[in-house]
């Protein structure tokens, strides 16, 4: 593999990582008191939360793959969520989808940071990829849920 593109990719990757304050994810919603809050998570912030391992297949990987990242319910722990709430997931490539908040409590939905132990770059669907545990819950293996596997996740907001 040519060296220059590799260096370029590394530069693009490491820069945000080195600048520790660089946010990887933004979370917006009402807090317990009803006020609108914006939470920002950087690399360290994400690592500080309990990370879950999800091994699953889905339409975008070639086989059973191990994803590691914080659970959505932990990311949104400081947000007051009502059962009927909806969450808008936005991606860097302007894709967005709405999921029911109930999903993150019914299932171990994670914002995966690592794929098979390696941190994901934008080029391979990183830095964060919403992963549902589809192998563990066959009812999730539908086109509807595959559309919710938002990669290049930028923000989560409560509708």
């Amino acid at each position, binding site marked *: 593999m*040519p060296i*220059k*593109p590799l*260096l*370029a*990719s590394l*530069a*693009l990757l490491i820069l945000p990582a080195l600048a520790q304050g660089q946010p990887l994810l933004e979370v917006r919603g009402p807090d317990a008191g009803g006020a609108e809050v914006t939470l920002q998570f950087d690399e360290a912030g994400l690592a500080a939360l309990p990370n879950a391992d999800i091994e699953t297949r*889905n*339409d*975008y*990987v*070639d086989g059973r793959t191990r994803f590691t990242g914080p659970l959505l319910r932990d990311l949104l722990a400081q947000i007051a969520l009502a059962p009927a709430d909806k969450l808008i997931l936005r991606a*860097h*490539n302007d894709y967005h989808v709405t999921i029911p908040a109930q999903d993150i409590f019914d299932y171990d939905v994670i914002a995966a940071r690592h794929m098979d132990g390696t941190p994901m*770059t*934008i*080029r*391979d*669907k990183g830095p964060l990829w919403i992963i549902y545990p589809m192998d563990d819950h066959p009812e999730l293996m539908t*086109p509807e849920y*595959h*559309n919710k596997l938002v*990669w*290049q996740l930028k923000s989560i907001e409560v509708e």
Partner: protein
Amino acid sequence: MRRLHVVRAITLAFVALALLGTVAAFRALDHRVQDLKIQEHSNPVWIVSQLEYEALRFDNALKTYLLGEVEAAQVGFRLDIMWSRVDVMSHGRHRQVLADYPDAVIALADIQAALTQLDTLVASFPPQADAASAAGVARALELSRGIKDRVHALILRVLSVKSKRDAKTRADFVTLAGWTRLLSVGTGVALSVLMIYAWLNAERQRRHSRAQQRLLREAQAASEAKSQFLSVVNHELRTPLTSIKGGISLLLGGADGVLSPRSERLLQIAHDNCERLGLIINDLLDLEKLEAGKMEFCFARESAASIVAETVEGMTQFARGHDVRIAVAATQGEDIVLADRYRMVQALTNLLSNAIKFSPRGGCVDVRIDRADRQLSIVVTDHGCGIPEEALGSIFEKFTQVDSSDKRAKGGTGLGLSIAKSIVEKHGGAIAVQSTLGQGTTFTITMRPALQQDRPHPPEGPAEAA
């Protein structure tokens, strides 16, 4: 009848074929539906158009960078997004779908090559566009335009191929549906034919069974009539016979004084013949009673040896007349059976009589009692001319005698064995015959010995034959 069978065979074959065909058609349909499901959320046109969108945005980023409106990082970011699109197209389901379009695979390879070149170029961009990087940006724009054109051409190609395939799939579906419909109708028709055939068959069987029952009733009626006829005729024969015998006996007894030797001889012959006639009538009557099930048996605990002894004693005169000896042998042990003494003696007498008649002069008839585990046998053996194998099967039938020329020589009604068999079977026993031509014949009566607790009533079923 033959024609119906042919129709049935053809119909069955057709139904089987139709069913197989329907199953195959359904499986094919199912397969197509599965394909459809995959296509549903992985439309190749959509996949490629996503790439086109990102290619356009990258091109736009390059131009705005050139205009100084954005920084190089933005261009790099857009390049990353394009790479991620290619990455998505190279894994999982999208890869599977695109593999069906060889143009897409080639195009992707070309685009990756172009992107690799762009990597080098974009990495060298200063954060703000300046004159020094103009050449690099120009080259990048050129590559970008190349990618855009490539992707757009690919979309149109994929669209065209997909439309054709969709049309074909729809046509296939319609054809399959048509076939399935046809096969279903065919199966339905075949099943109807089968059902009609089955119903017709049942009708035929009902008619057949009714006919059979009618025949059965007729046969039973005929048998009844014959029995009654025999009974009546026998009685009508006996009465005059008794009268004749009576008269002759009186004359022989001297009712009309002393007879001349000639008269006495003639009367004696007449008397003997009356005796014989009487015996024949008795046999006929007995047989009729046995067949009608009207013969009454009086069972008691009897010794087989004593039955044999009584029979042999009664046959002594007859045997001497034929110059034949009777030898009796008995094994030690219990020989009590439940039997009607009179009737068993009768049966055994018939066997012995045959044995004596068919023994050579000076010969010997053996009577033996065998006691085995659960069975008692009375065996009568003669050393006469034997019975041919083909005659053995019908030996116990009425009016059957081996070799009609013999009949006149040996006498008898041909009823003796038939009566003996009936009597033995009514005792719950069995009778069997064995014979070798030129050496002799053996008749064996087998019965179940009476157990301590047996009461004098007719045994249940026949004992096993030897």
